[in-house]
């Protein structure tokens, strides 16, 4: 047995997973790899969650650091070199074994491997890639692997990681050059954007030239993470960056992570609580951009730089654009229906299919998954409004919705995530 003494491995696991928990990414969706006879594991297209921790976040991967040793001194990070914390590292063999044992008990979907930088990026990445290689080769593991690309990694190291992983990511951490310079002086914003481009290039080359790489080859694409609230950057700046990352750099996901004060540092703002509502609103806006056809500018009032915390961004847009409504459900296009608060991409598509094949009524909408409590003010069916709604007097909508503040009512915005 590789793991010699149990207190040793308990301690190691505790330190290295606590060091990795601030990375939000947990998606395992988007890769469809069928099981192969004689190989352990597959990748399930819709992704799977295996548990939920007491902060309500889903656990689907064994999320850990290779080492919490780090040469960088990023102000927000628990593992920065200036911090006096216990340092330790996994041996590749040991971590591969642990992943294998967790996986066959169905605790996890696979491995999320990040790391502090010990000596330099390439040497640390070599250890990470080694771990993945042991898993893939010795254990015949065909489950999900997410690999972090460390800032400063060479093309060669990036290529090795892509060959073996299902998704790779490099965290921008902050949305602007100045902010990053201030909090993470050893990192360079434009260098990191370049790395994202490099990853795309290497990945495309690999997938087009070598058939042996088609099994893995980071088919799940790239993701990144941005810390919210540690710097004065605005929602508009953040979402403009996300939009750029999605449309130009082909990222699959941008994660937003509410800043949690871990270190005492004069470069950091003194906050009592992590800005969780702001984080939530950014995710909603992110969904609107990716699945609802909203443009970033539409989400902000002229001159405003931040999203409203009071209402979700879709409702805010609707209240600001009342002349767009009511939407006639029997005739409107998909993109018009998607603008209605309370209707998400799944129910919108159902509506289109249903009306093509029959007669549709308000009662049916509820059954098709529409949140009528929200949608009823904004729609008509064959010219009729919902019973009890005064279509001529929608000016008091804001006060109506102030009463309904439960986040559960906004579930349509996360329909895609919940499936």
């Amino acid at each position, binding site marked *: 047995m590789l*793991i010699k003494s*149990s*207190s040793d*491995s*308990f*301690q190691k*696991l*505790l*330190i290295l*997973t606590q060091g990795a*928990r*601030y990375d939000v990414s947990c998606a395992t969706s988007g890769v469809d790899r*069928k*099981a192969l*006879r*004689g*190989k*352990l*594991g*597959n990748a*399930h297209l*819709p992704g*799977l*969650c*295996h*548990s*939920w*921790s*007491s*902060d*309500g*976040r*889903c*656990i*689907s991967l*064994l*999320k850990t650091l290779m080492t919490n040793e780090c040469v960088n001194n990023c102000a927000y990070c628990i593992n920065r070199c200036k911090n006096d914390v216990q340092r330790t590292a996994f041996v590749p063999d040991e971590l591969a074994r*642990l992943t294998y*044992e*967790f996986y*066959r*008990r*169905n*605790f996890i979907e696979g491995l999320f491997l990040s790391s502090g930088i010990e000596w330099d990026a390439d040497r640390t990445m070599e250890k990470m890639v080694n771990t993945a290689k042991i898993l893939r080769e010795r254990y*015949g593991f065909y489950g999900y692997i997410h690999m972090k690309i460390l800032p400063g990694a060479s093309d060669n190291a990036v290529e090795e990681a892509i060959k073996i992983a299902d998704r790779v990511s490099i965290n921008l951490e902050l949305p602007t050059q100045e902010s990053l310079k201030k909090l993470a002086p050893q990192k360079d914003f434009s260098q990191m954007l370049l790395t994202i481009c490099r990853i795309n290039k290497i990945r495309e080359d690999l997938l087009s030239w070598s058939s042996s790489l088609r099994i893995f080859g980071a088919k799940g694409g790239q993701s990144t993470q941005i810390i919210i609230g540690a710097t004065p950057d605005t929602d508009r700046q953040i979402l403009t960056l996300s939009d750029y990352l999605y449309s130009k750099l082909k990222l699959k996901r941008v994660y937003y992570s*509410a800043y*949690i004060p871990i270190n005492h540092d004069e470069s950091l703002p003194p906050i009592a609580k*992590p800005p*969780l509502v702001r984080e939530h609103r950014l995710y909603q806006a992110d969904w609107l951009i990716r699945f609802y056809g909203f443009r970033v500018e539409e989400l902000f009032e002229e001159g405003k730089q931040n999203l409203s915390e009071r209402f979700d961004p879709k409702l805010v847009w609707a209240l600001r654009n009342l002349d767009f409504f009511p939407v006639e459900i029997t005739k409107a296009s998909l993109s018009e229906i998607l603008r209605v608060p309370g209707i998400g991409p799944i129910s919108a598509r159902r509506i289109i*299919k*249903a*009306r*093509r*094949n*029959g007669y549709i009524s308000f*009662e*049916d909408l509820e*059954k*098709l998954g529409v949140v009528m409590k929200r949608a009823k003010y904004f729609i008509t069916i064959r010219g009729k409004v919902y019973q009890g709604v005064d279509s001529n007097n929608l000016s008091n909508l804001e006060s109506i919705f102030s009463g309904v503040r439960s986040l559960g009512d906004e579930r349509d915005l996360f329909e895609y995530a919940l*499936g």
Partner: protein
Amino acid sequence: MNEICSNTLSDRKYSAGLSSVPDDRFESKDKSLCRNNSGVEGCAWWEKDDFQSILECVPIGIREIVYYFLLSDVKDKKTILEEFLKCGIDSENKILANVHNPLVYQIFRKARSVRRQIHKWKGVLRFKEIEGGYLYASFSSEFDIIYPLAKHFGERFNTERLLIHDLGRDKAVYVESGSIYHIEFFGMIPPESDAEKFFCRLWKLYFNSVSIEERKNEGLQNRCLPRKFQNWLCEFSNNELKRIRNTAQQLELF
């Protein structure tokens, strides 16, 4: 039996007929329930078990939905299905267009909850390594979903020998290299291996260490993972949790 699995097995009646050879502890009822040829026969997996003859009468476009409905806990499923088939609905789109018909809506809604629960169990069904090198998993559900689960895990863990046990129905399957066999337990489930306890404790430690105190939100946790699932998971068993905390305290980590 240690605490980890006592909550799942304690009140069951596996007492008589203990045999020392693991292979003798269960016997095959049907020879092979579902040979997995990975789609070589060009036939969907869900057409291969119990409901094959019924599903043959169902239009292809709605077979999957009907299959999920048949796994549900609705009484008189076959009568409802007969009535439903008279409506002449042959595609999912037509189901969506006819949700005002209570029969159609019932089938649509039930199929959806069965599908969702299968998805949930794919994530939370836990295997324990038992003596003899088998991986054993037990669960219970209001829906009869052991085959779709066996299918999923049979593919995913095709290098392992699996036992999946629906305790509520006392229905069990043995899955090996993609084949699913109906089996019956007679005797005790073999005890867990030594490694099992060790990895389960590591898992609990991991489960607790990933949670961020400043973001604590147990309401959200319970909404995402209702108690009926939590009860099956070792990471939610409290005694064990305390033990982990003590260990961690001894190590001066908390």
